[in-house]
């Protein structure tokens, strides 16, 4: 096995016993990037020289006995996380040459840990999409079948982990953007509770929904990353001041006696036979571990998607008002006056999906429509959150699919926004309520494409998700399978 194929947890052990060095690991991953990146396009920017320098520094730290748990492990960040002096484009033409003058909090935390940052992973433009096809830099391809989409919006982050182009990555999740690509690429991904990870320096899409989280090969690596990124940050006023546990302590806790809820609204609509089979198998595995099941109802779940596609674009239309061609980013060459400069810079700088969401959000917030759309959606959000609160009085976690189908073909849903939006029907409700959710590999379709299962817990119960996924991964080998490239 080559070094790039190991988990972060295993590599960290090998670094401690001096079986390998951070420079060796980093070079192995960089060689893998050289070998398969052209086929997959997981990255917007790779910085190999700087990665090796960071690895050398990590090796010095480790030699001095000053290492932290993940010192020396190579990571990729999503291209919407500010990294001082490094191009951060959000996969948009409007930020094609933006070099942030500061580090996001997550990047600062990675640097303090001594993690090696390889570069920025591809994504849907401004994280708006479910397939990584709306990137200004072109689509990322699914490592399991390059004709297929990797899911989105953190498609580059998930595909990189699946293909060995990074050991672990960070993504962001507004309506499923970590869990969906993790499921479609056969890796593990967690969206933590809203407020658990600082959003300072994360380019904003929909601020009441956005959350940063880890993508990795197994629950153990997810726990190791959560230990680094969860925590209060005074620079993010929605960051929640509280103590976060050591998530690695939950990896070996038995799940016997736990109660898992199965919301019928999630399963009633499930038509895909492969997804149905995978969900059935997952229930069987948990049952064999001594978990019991309780049937639940989340009566307002069916309205979550419609409410989300009002709330998220509304927030986006406001957040993206800052791209005006004045302080940073793209400015059109020809214009007639100030307003025209804004209109043309934005028209030329944003792609079709971003414009569509700005239009939708602007409409929903405009005079005369606010009550019917935004206010209505915000009230339905309360009802969805209450549904979950009641559900968690009866169970410890919820089990449901991550997506209604296996990955689909590149181009298949690009001209049909509603079909594309429906891809997120099982992930969006979790963001609406601000809950933690995790996708882990649950099996494969008859065509050999990965299918993920999703676990959801109550606010700040990430440790329980780590516990349940770790127990599942001890019984299964789906997460150990790798695509042949």
């Amino acid at each position, binding site marked *: 096995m080559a070094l790039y194929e190991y988990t972060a947890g295993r590599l960290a052990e090998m670094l401690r016993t001096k079986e390998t060095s951070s420079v060796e690991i980093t070079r192995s991953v960089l060689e893998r990037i050289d070998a398969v990146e052209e086929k997959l396009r997981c990255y917007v920017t790779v910085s190999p020289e700087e990665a090796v320098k960071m690895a050398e520094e990590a090796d010095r730290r480790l030699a001095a006995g000053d290492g932290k748990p993940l010192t020396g492990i190579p990571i990729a960040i999503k291209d919407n996380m500010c990294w001082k002096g490094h191009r951060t484009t959000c996969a948009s033409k409007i930020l094609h040459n933006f070099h942030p003058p500061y580090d996001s909090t997550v990047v600062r935390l990675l640097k303090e840990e001594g993690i090696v940052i390889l570069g920025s992973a591809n994504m849907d433009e401004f994280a708006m999409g479910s397939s990584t096809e709306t990137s200004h830099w072109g689509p990322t391809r699914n490592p399991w079948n390059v004709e297929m989409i990797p899911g989105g919006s953190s498609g580059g982050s998930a595909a990189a982990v699946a293909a060995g182009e990074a050991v672990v990555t960070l993504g962001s999740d507004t309506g499923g953007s970590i869990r969906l690509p993790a499921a479609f690429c056969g890796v593990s991904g967690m969206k933590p509770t*809203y407020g658990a990870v600082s959003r300072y320096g994360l380019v904003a899409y929909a601020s009441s929904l956005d959350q940063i989280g880890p993508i990795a090969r197994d629950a153990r690596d997810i726990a190791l990353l959560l230990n680094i990124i969860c925590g209060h940050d005074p620079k993010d006023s929605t960051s929640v001041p509280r103590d976060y546990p050591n998530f690695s302590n939950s990896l070996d806790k038995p799940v016997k006696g736990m109660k898992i809820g199965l919301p019928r609204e999630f399963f009633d609509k499930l038509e895909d036979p492969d997804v149905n089979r995978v969900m059935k198998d997952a229930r069987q595995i948990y049952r064999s571990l001594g978990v019991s099941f309780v049937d639940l109802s989340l009566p307002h779940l069916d309205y979550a998607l*419609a409410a989300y596609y009002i709330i998220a674009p509304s927030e986006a239309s406001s957040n993206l008002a800052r791209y005006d061609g*004045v302080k940073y980013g793209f400015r059109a060459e020809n214009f007639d006056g100030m307003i025209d400069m804004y209109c043309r810079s*934005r028209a030329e700088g944003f792609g079709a999906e971003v414009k569509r969401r700005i239009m939708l959000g602007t409409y929903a917030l405009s005079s005369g429509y606010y009550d019917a759309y935004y206010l209505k959606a915000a009230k339905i959000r309360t*009802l969805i959150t209450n549904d979950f609160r009641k559900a968690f009085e009866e169970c410890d976690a919820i089990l449901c699919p991550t997506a209604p189908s296996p990955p689909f073909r590149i181009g298949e849903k690009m001209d049909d926004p509603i079909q594309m939006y429906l891809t997120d029907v099982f992930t969006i409700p979790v963001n609406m309520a*601000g809950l933690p959710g995790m996708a882990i590999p649950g099996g494969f379709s008859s065509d050999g494409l990965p299918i993920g299962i999703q676990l959801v817990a109550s606010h700040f119960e990430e440790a329980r998700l780590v516990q349940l996924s770790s127990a599942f991964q001890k019984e299964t080998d789906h997460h150990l399978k790798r695509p042949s490239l």
Partner: protein
Amino acid sequence: MKITTEQVEYVALLGRLALTSEEKKKYSAQLDDILKYMDMLAEVPTDDVEPMAGPVKLFTPLREDKVEPSLSVEDALRNAPAVAGSSFRVPKVIE
């Protein structure tokens, strides 16, 4: 139709987007489809429901008023498309 081309033009101006006539046509049709899908929300009775702006109870965090370094003018201007001295350069705003 829930949304007319005139409305699309008005919303595009509010959103500061210069759309081509082709885009206007495309977005009218697509926004119409999307808004029709949203109609289902009207089924839900919400008269007594409080709206929710976000999952976290917002409070005003207070901190000590400590002097810390801030962005230098040079760093603030580095990404600007047009600069004049220590300022962002923009087209004439006041006639």
